[in-house]
């Protein structure tokens, strides 16, 4: 289990990064926590690794009223502990806490896991659920790509050729809204058998106005499911969250693998939806009252 030979460059500017990425078989290395195992197992054998860790300006978390911009070199652990980001979009810390173990979070990057487009990654779903986008640098300039256009398939994104995702933007949690995130994994820190993130938004009267959910390890690419119909207009404190869970089960199309059957995943979609909605609604009520 040793990587096949490759060339390595660690340019100090984005322009240089893009220049090297123009070479045949070049691939970006950021945190490397997904890429290195693939290299060691020889499941990936890029001709050149372009390490972006020396590019300045990519390691910032910027939280504004609109949302949170996470630079390409922000480690999971930094995002997990970023209080300002958590205030603007609480899902970020909640989801990041579920990413592997601390030693992995110290090195792995949030944007890297999004660019890796693994349907069992947490942050892909969070990007979708918050209706976020990524910014991609290309020789022709920077471009913003919405999550729907970005995720094409498992481990597959729409960007090709010399391009680097320089940041991901997660819109702020809207007013009168609450979120929650929960996972079930066989071992703590494993990829989830199923994970769920939800956003509940209330109307001014404290009734459910909108419910959206996205799942981890369910489906080939992140999907956001609108569950509003199951509970619309119901008081947040007494809404029939089980009905929303039941609706969610009918909307998802999970796969079977060695850890869980599709049916079991569907079951968990229902359970986690209901459980997360209860706490998201409570948060929404709190934020509405405030």
């Amino acid at each position, binding site marked *: 289990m040793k990587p096949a030979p490759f060339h390595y*460059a660690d340019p100090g500017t984005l322009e240089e990064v893009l220049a090297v990425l123009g*070479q045949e078989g070049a691939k970006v290395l950021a945190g490397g926590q997904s890429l290195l195992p693939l290299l060691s197992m020889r499941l990936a054998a890029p001709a050149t690794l372009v390490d972006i860790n020396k590019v300045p300006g990519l390691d910032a978390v910027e939280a504004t009223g609109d949302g949170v911009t996470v630079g390409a070199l922000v480690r999971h652990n930094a995002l997990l502990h970023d209080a300002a980001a958590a205030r603007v979009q609480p899902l970020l810390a909640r989801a990041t806490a579920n990413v592997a173990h601390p030693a992995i979070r110290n090195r792995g990057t949030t944007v890297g896991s999004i660019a890796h487009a693994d349907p069992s990654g947490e942050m892909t779903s969070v990007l979708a659920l918050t209706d976020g986008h990524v910014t991609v640098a290309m020789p022709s300039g920077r471009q913003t790509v919405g999550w729907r256009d970005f995720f094409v398939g498992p481990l597959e994104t729409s960007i090709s050729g010399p391009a680097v995702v320089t940041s991901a933007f997660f819109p702020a949690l809207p007013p009168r809204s609450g979120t929650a995130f929960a996972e079930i994994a066989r071992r703590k820190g494993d990829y989830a058998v199923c994970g769920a993130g939800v956003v509940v938004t209330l109307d001014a009267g404290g009734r459910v106005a909108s419910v959206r959910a996205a799942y981890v390890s369910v489906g080939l690419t992140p999907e956001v499911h609108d569950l509003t119909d199951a509970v619309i207009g119901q008081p947040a404190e007494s809404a029939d969250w089980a009905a929303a869970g039941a609706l969610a089960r009918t909307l998802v199309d999970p796969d079977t693998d060695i850890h869980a059957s599709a049916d079991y995943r569907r079951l968990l979609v229902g359970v986690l939806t209901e459980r997360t909605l209860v706490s998201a609604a409570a948060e929404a009520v709190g934020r509405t009252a405030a």
Partner: protein
Amino acid sequence: MTNVDIERTVTVTVNGVPREATVPVRRLLSDALRHDLGLTGTHVGCEHGVCGACTVLVDGDPVRSCLMLAVQVDGRSVTTVEGLARDDNRGGQVLHPVQEAFRECHALQCGFCTPGFLITIAAGLEKRDNTVELTEEEVDDMVGGNLCRCTGYANIKKAVHHAAATMRDAG
């Protein structure tokens, strides 16, 4: 012009000592530490980042050395298990409290996973305010990302408490 290399000379401070090695760029940090620098205390248990035996500190933070390339620590500081104890200035060494605790609590059997645990726990304990009571949740966080096949973890958790108590008493 960007350098695109197949081999590089890496300068890194390991356990406080500047070291230099010329390595193929694909060399994993774990292999470089073990085979190029002769620091075989860092062990390799899976080479896909799950077991934690190869955990070292890079600039103070625990990372899996099998999931970094040696070239990526150029100019940085690495601490391995060999660097946990301090010199006592009399030719001997003062063990880190977590090392003492592992021995005292029988927190190791075959010892293969031990360096990764020691490094992770030492970093965890040093980062916290040791006047505050250690919670089980903190302990779980410190030991939860490393695999051990011998001990069943009970004595490893005990050792974390033991080390925390030592560090608290030492102020």
